[in-house]
């Protein structure tokens, strides 16, 4: 079962590893993606020369790590259908662990900082998961929110953790973490980016494995109907807890990478509920029914905010408008909509049909106009009635 070419449905596909067989087009896309991922530091230099401000290493890295956390979140969201509004808790725990060990234990090894961040983040996920197990739906969302805010409050309130100003991650004499004992100097950012890229790829692979295992189907069953899942013998509590912990691991790793790259952590930037919200929206923006969606969504959202901020003071409106369009037009997210029966294809098909109709019978245009006009008038009528009702009372 080694990498190579196989025959499927009469066409040649590429087997990347055991179980992962892609069409040639998909494989090319995958290859392109990986190359692009690793080419970023070089592309950044090109972008600088071309004055493309948003393509900065820091911005892309930030999008990647938050997107990575969103990939973890997606395990809960897509399969067990649990909306977690407190994922920043794991991200922040990982980040702060790195900061605390750097500042108070003067740990200089990059790898140890990351390992500890992951470990403590996982432990936090285990604890919060165990407590949140019993709930679903809105209660689950609110409970995760509460825990997230609790951690935020602790980080904010303790001056030992830097309070609202946060903490630097600058251990040792070199004032930065060392890789295998070596100071990285000017190449620090770039090497850390490569480490991040590697970890992201490994993480995606692991998630892919999980999503293609029996565990995933068990989670799906739990997500659809918990009671029935219990009846057929699934250890619901344990499985949900495991899924929670796994998603927390991704968050913790992401937080550690974030802390170590930027060398500074703040409560508002890592633990606040708006960050949890961001992680959730990244998953949806990219398409939460896909594996890569959340990661793509992460980079997209960060870039969008960055570009928006430099273009207009009303960048929040821009983000809001994008999300509205997302909800109404592209519920499958960006990646989700690219697929075979995604929104793009369907819209294109409808457009083609409409154009054909118009060419055949120009009076169709009149029909359309009348229909739109009628619809609008109905809407206005309804709103006016509603207003009248509100002012004068329900009739």
């Amino acid at each position, binding site marked *: 079962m080694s990498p190579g070419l196989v025959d499927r449905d009469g066409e040649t596909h590429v087997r990347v590893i055991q179980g992962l067989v892609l069409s040639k087009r998909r494989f090319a896309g995958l290859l392109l993606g990986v190359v692009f991922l690793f080419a970023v530091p070089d592309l950044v230099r090109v972008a*600088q020369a071309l004055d493309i*401000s948003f393509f*900065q290493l*820091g*911005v892309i890295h930030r999008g990647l790590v938050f997107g990575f956390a969103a990939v973890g979140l997606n395990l809960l969201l897509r399969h067990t259908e649990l909306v977690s509004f407190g994922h920043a808790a794991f991200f922040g725990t990982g980040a702060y662990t790195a900061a605390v060990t750097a500042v108070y234990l003067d740990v200089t090894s990059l790898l140890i900082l990351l390992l500890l961040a992951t470990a403590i983040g996982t432990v936090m996920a285990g604890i919060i998961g165990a407590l949140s197990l019993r709930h679903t739906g809105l209660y689950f969302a609110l409970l995760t929110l509460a825990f997230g805010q609790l951690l935020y409050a602790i980080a904010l309130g303790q*001056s030992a953790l830097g*309070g*609202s*100003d*946060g903490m*630097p991650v*600058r251990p040792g004499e070199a*004032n930065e973490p060392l890789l295998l004992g070596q100071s990285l100097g000017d190449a620090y950012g770039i090497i850390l980016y490569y480490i991040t890229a590697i970890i992201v790829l490994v993480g995606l692979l692991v998630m892919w494995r999980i999503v293609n295992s029996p565990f995933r189907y068990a989670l799906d069953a739990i997500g659809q109907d918990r009671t029935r899942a219990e009846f057929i013998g699934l250890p619901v509590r344990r499985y949900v807890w495991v899924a929670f912990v796994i998603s927390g691991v991704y968050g913790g790793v992401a937080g550690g990478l974030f802390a170590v790259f*930027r*060398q*500074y952590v703040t409560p508002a*930037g890592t633990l606040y509920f708006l960050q949890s919200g961001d992680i959730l929206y990244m998953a949806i923006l990219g398409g939460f029914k896909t594996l890569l969606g959340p990661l793509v969504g992460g980079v997209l959202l960060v870039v969008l905010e960055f570009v928006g*901020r430099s273009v207009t*003071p009303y960048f929040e409106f821009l983000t809001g408008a994008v999300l509205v369009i997302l909800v109404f037009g592209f519920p499958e997210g960006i990646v989700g909509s690219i697929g075979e029966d995604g929104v793009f294809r369907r819209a294109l098909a409808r457009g083609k049909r409409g154009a054909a109709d118009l060419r055949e019978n120009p009076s169709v245009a009149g029909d359309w106009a009348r229909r739109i006009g009628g619809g609008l008038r109905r809407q206005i009528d309804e709103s006016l009635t509603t207003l009248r009702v509100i002012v004068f009372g329900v009739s």
Partner: protein
Amino acid sequence: MVRKGTQHDAGGIDRRGLLKAVGGTAVAAALAGCSSLIGGDGEGDGDGAGAAAGTVTSDPIEAGMLTFTRGAAGVLGIQAQRGAELAVQRINDAGGIAGKREVNLDVVDEGDSPLDSYNQFIEEGKDVTFGPISSGTHAQIAPEVESNEVVNVGTDGTVTTLYEETVPDPTYSFRFQNYDVMECVTMAREAVSRLGADNIETVAGVNPGYTFGEDEMAVFTQAIQKLTGAEVVYEGFPELGASDMSNHITSVNDEQPDVTFTSLWGGDVTTFLRQASANDMYDNTTVVGSILYSAAGDVPADALEGAELYSGSRNFYWDHPQTGNWQPGQDLFDAAQDQDGVSIPNAHYMSGYGAVTAWATAVEKAIDVLGTYPTQEQIATVLEGHGFFTPAGYHVMAADHQGMSNAVAGQMVYDDDLGGARLEDVNIYSPTETAPPPGTPASDWLESWTG
């Protein structure tokens, strides 16, 4: 400085001599606010740096500045922006650095991700950076400044630990404005001078809940205890931008301390004073604030009614020396009126102005000595121990990279004609009274006081 009326009969000092007195170049004269005194309109005509002008390119110098441009903090941050912009405008009107290089100032909000914004400045290849305002931001950025090796002249970010702990031996990071120790010691001395050491037995503090506020309370406490032996009866730390400080005010009312110290700034000042007035806090304590005057243009008359309030204003109060007697000050005040968002220029206006002045005059001095445009390291070397003039007076950038200037304090009252607050009965404190000797950590210095 020569008075306007006697500029041409000042005992034989000619124009060149006058120019030398303010730093030797047209730019320095313009920044000192003396161009009109010296005659001529300050255009570069080969004075000072002119000799080397031939080897300096005429590309503009790219400068970046971080400050708060929006929100409650923006009320104050915009002052620094306008001050810096005025300084840059004066440089360019005088022909630019070395009479050749104009300065382009790019101001960016430090509120959201200051680290990213700062990194972007470096990516864009800025030749110098200014700012930030917030102490927290300054602590984040200072290590980056050192590793990027591009001179940053800080406008504020005055926390004591910056050069004592965060970056103990800076090369490229400088800070223009008087820092926390200086203004807290100023206010401690001011409190003693107004109320008398024997009358200060209890003190309280309401300070913003982040590094700066905690730092200021700690320093003030140490200083006031050395001067009076007072006991601290309450410490409150509302978060920056908090909308409700009534709990702290109620606690102060309960304890009735002789002095209540506050380092609240900008929009928080108005919130605090308004609610203090509503809760009759002025009947229960005397408020002493290190930087209350930063809200001079914002605070309403009713918030100051019935208050005996003393405030510092770091190294600049626009009416000292009185603008009637001091043309550079009057010119500065007038210029500020033409700018958006500054009705009364305060200490932060001078922070921006002075940071740019420090750098510009140092660069000009370096060009004069070297004959070419200096490297970052050379600029940094010149800046150490560099003295220069602004309309606020004479300043020194000490060898430890901390700016040293006289400190101002006075009673803060509302002036209807001005439409804002002013300081009356102003006292001046020299750096020897308010700053530790170079090399001595602030708390050690305070500890060594005998009274």
